[in-house]
């Protein structure tokens, strides 16, 4: 994990004149600066600007419409559904994959047998192509020929139409999301666990924390604070960015019940080519990301550092 520290100015090197140093620095940084402006700053400004227009690809002219797009968004049922679905999806995937990742990490850490095998097994989904694995999950979830429902049938249960019914589709996608991201969180927690000094556990033992549960709440959990916060942010941001599984498996259906933010933006902007309207959606998407980052920074500020 990368810890961010920024000294105000980098160390000046004595053997290079200040003017020459600045010139060289500019020269070295110039390509990056130009590309940052071209591919990040300018498009970002453009997206905010386009959000105030009725620009559509293929039409020559466009009008400045003020906040009309945002007003329309407010009453757009698809967009509201999409925001709601994204919130539900994230509210399931982020916490479950966090605690699953933590649980697996704790189990692996305390068990000496097969550590590397288990780490590999749980991490494998992170390194796999999501579009491909989503296709496999589609087969697993198939209502009639899928192994999951076949297994349920063996014990006398009738499985739901996982991806095909509007009441279960979001949960099915969430299962895939959890499966895909838990291993990533596990690896981050494993790194956090190895950083905890062993003597803290001995000290806790002396203080009367005899059971594993006591030690967990007295030492492990507080010491993992920064890691946990980091995992929360990453998990939520990744969950909000869900797209691949939706595009591959459901196209937002059935009946818009798996319509999520990025998919709606993709549809409006790149399929219906309503660039202005989709830009307004993008601004809201960005606002969500900014708010979450802001919350993380605020919490990090307050976070007590134990080491």
């Amino acid at each position, binding site marked *: *994990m*990368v810890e961010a520290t920024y000294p105000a100015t*980098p*160390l000046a*090197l*004595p*053997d*290079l004149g200040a003017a020459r*140093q*600045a010139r*060289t*620095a*500019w*020269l*070295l*940084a110039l*390509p*990056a600066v130009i590309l*940052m402006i071209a591919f*990040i700053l*300018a498009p970002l400004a453009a*997206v905010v600007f*386009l959000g105030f227009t009725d*620009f559509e*690809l293929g039409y020559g002219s466009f009008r400045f419409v003020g906040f009309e797009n945002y007003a329309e968004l407010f009453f757009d049922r698809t967009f509201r559904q999409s925001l709601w679905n994204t919130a539900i999806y994230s509210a399931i995937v982020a916490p479950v994959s966090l605690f699953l990742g933590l649980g697996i990490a704790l189990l692996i850490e305390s*068990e*000496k047998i097969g550590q*590397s095998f*288990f*780490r590999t*097994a*749980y*991490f*494998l989904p992170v*390194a796999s*192509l999501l*579009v*491909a*694995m989503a*296709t*496999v999950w589609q*087969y*697993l979830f198939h209502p009639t*020929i*899928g*192994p999951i429902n*076949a297994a349920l049938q063996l014990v006398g249960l009738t499985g739901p139409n996982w991806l095909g019914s509007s009441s279960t589709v979001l949960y099915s996608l969430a299962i895939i999301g959890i*499966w895909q991201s*838990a291993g990533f969180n596990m*690896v981050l927690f494993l*790194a956090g666990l190895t950083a905890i000094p062993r003597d803290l556990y001995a000290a806790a033992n002396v203080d009367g924390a005899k059971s594993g549960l006591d030690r967990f709440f007295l030492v492990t959990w507080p010491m993992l604070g920064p890691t946990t916060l980091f995992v929360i942010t*990453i998990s939520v941001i*990744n969950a909000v*960015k869900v*797209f691949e599984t939706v595009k*591959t498996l459901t196209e937002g259906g059935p009946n818009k019940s798996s319509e999520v933010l990025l998919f709606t933006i*993709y549809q409006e902007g*790149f399929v219906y080519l309503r660039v202005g309207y989709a*830009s307004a959606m993008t601004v809201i998407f960005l606002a969500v*990301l900014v708010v979450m980052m802001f919350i993380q920074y605020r919490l990090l500020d307050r976070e007590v550092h134990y080491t």
Partner: protein
Amino acid sequence: MNPQATFTFGRALRLGLLCLGALMFLAPYVFMLSTAGKGQSEIFTSSLSLIPQHSFFVQNFMKAFTRVNMLGLLFNGVVVCCLILFFQVLIAVPCAYALAKLNFRAARLMMALVMLGLLVPIHATALPLYVAFNNLAVLNSYTALVAPFSISVFGIFLFLQFFRAMPDDLIHAARLDGMSEMGIVARVIVPNAWPAITAFAIFSVVAHWNDLYWPLIVVSNQTYATPPLGLLYFRAAEAGDDYGALMAATLIITLPLVLAFLFAQKRFVEGITMTGLKG
């Protein structure tokens, strides 16, 4: 107390849980392998038996290779990932060096720009970029697939952290030897930065091999399709219910990265955790 010697109830429970979990996490791979070897009729009748009764591996793989240009897809994936990585390193390393080791006034402003860039995913800049690329008539090309990722603020950020930790004496000595700043970057910094570059390479390749969003936007034919996009075309061509061929295709496309991961696990996990900052 020696934890290896005692086999308590708690430990058995722990191992049992781990095994059960691992089984659930690996199940999709097992079914992918098994279904890739089954014929249509067997897929429809016995979905729970793992070993195919009649091996259809050859037929399914033949279909996967012929219905779409599978080798072309893999080739595109490799070309795009390599080009992206090449430009990212080429552009981010000198910039990070300047920010870490040289004194110039714009450094703070640039740091702010980098931090802003970290926050902005491709999904946010995709619309204007698409409009621009459309006007420049560069859609459906390697240029369109690679250009927006040629700058990685995340790369700059990662290398910056790494370069700051490098001793100044190293650079000082190189300067006394009369090396130019470019020479220092190429012959002192880069050779010493391999751990960071490897970690970044793994992160970058995993991210771009798997990316669907941007290729989906700028590519509309098979010539320039990357693996994830190609798989979408394959699904459309198969109408999604020839699961045998579909699983064979997924297997082919998933395999390169999974093999790379299995052979260089430690590096992968390091790379991904080190670069865990960006999702």
